[in-house]
């Protein structure tokens, strides 16, 4: 399966986008949204792209539209939110690749360097450190992956 990249965007921003869209009745013109939020257009596009990859929003024409899963996520408690997002993250090719990668490692752990090298191998056009940071950030939020800086260990959550 071809591995596709994801933008380096924090989960909190994605959740903020969903809240803002809900306030706007579930649909808004992307340009107008950037202006209303005083957000740099390119930065907002990155957040929207990340939310779209997770199937939380859709982008018909120049608009961004909240999807039923996005609406569900903003209405549930934090642990349900994390669990729903985990399902979406696991389904993405980048994360499923690294789940399989870690399962092949001793103790299901790899060093930062090993992950960065693998990221560079499968996504040659992307910045491998940025890929690593996204794996750690989304992985931690959804409790799919962990990273211990002291031990330099990127690992698969015990429940996986």
């Amino acid at each position, binding site marked *: 399966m071809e591995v596709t990249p994801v933008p380096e965007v924090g989960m909190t921003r994605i959740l903020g986008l969903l809240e803002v869209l809900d306030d706007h009745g579930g649909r808004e013109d992307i340009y107008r949204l950037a202006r209303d939020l005083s957000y740099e257009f390119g930065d907002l596009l990155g957040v929207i792209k990340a939310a779209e990859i997770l199937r939380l929003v859709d982008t018909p024409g120049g608009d961004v539209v909240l999807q039923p899963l996005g609406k569900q996520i903003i209405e549930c408690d934090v642990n349900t939110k994390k669990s729903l997002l985990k399902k979406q993250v696991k389904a993405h090719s980048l994360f499923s690749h690294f789940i399989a990668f870690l399962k092949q490692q001793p103790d299901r752990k790899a060093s930062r360097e090993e992950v960065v090298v693998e990221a560079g191998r499968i996504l040659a056009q992307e910045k491998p450190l940025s890929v690593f940071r996204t794996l750690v950030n989304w*992985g931690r939020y959804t409790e799919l992956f962990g990273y211990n800086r002291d031990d330099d260990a990127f690992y698969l959550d015990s429940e996986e």
Partner: protein
Amino acid sequence: MELIRLEQIRKTYPQPQGTITVLDGIDLSIPTDEFVAIVGPSGCGKTTLLRIINGLITPTSGTALYRGKPLNGVNLGCAMVFQSFALLPWLTVRENVELGPEARGMDAEQRAKKANFFIDKVGLDGYEEAYPRELSGGMKQRVGLARAMAVEPELLLMDEPFSALDALTSVALREELLDLWRDPEIPLRTLLLVTHIIEEAVELADRVIVLSNRPARILKDLAVPLKRPRNKKSEEFGQFVDEIFSLIA
């Protein structure tokens, strides 16, 4: 039950060119179970007022009472959330959250239990062993919230907690703060938020105290008449924001 009472609070600072008056004649009462916001122009003295309530500084004149008793030193009924997060960079998320309970003398087992509970409540499960430099602003402020709540304060003081965050992150965290306030498992009932963002005060609070330019005086004490959840795009919301803006402007 009245938690805080301020009577004719005045705070001045001597300067080489003369005395600067920051607060002048502040009378304020905060009962339990209320979410109060203080708004005012930047630099008007909002943070000074918060620090007097927290017992970190004493007023030049006037009386500050907590549960009817004069404040004498740090107010242990309060915990503070800071704009700049105030995390210790050499400690992990878990260790930062445990700091509050540790400072209040809780033993290791108790504080680990408290830390686990509040780390879970703010959505930081998975980040326990991360260091602050590995976190985004939003995640850092979640640590700040968890640390403050872990001492189970009667009054949570928040000094511009979302001002250092980008627009989308602050929207998400404001919603999460309201979720925490409504959570029956968390004994967090009384909140005092200082902000210069009027929309933030109207979105979150039951009551908005409007301060003037320095020296700060209370211009108005307004109950927010809007039902929750508040629609920030509604006409009523906009009108209420405009009313406060016209007072400050």
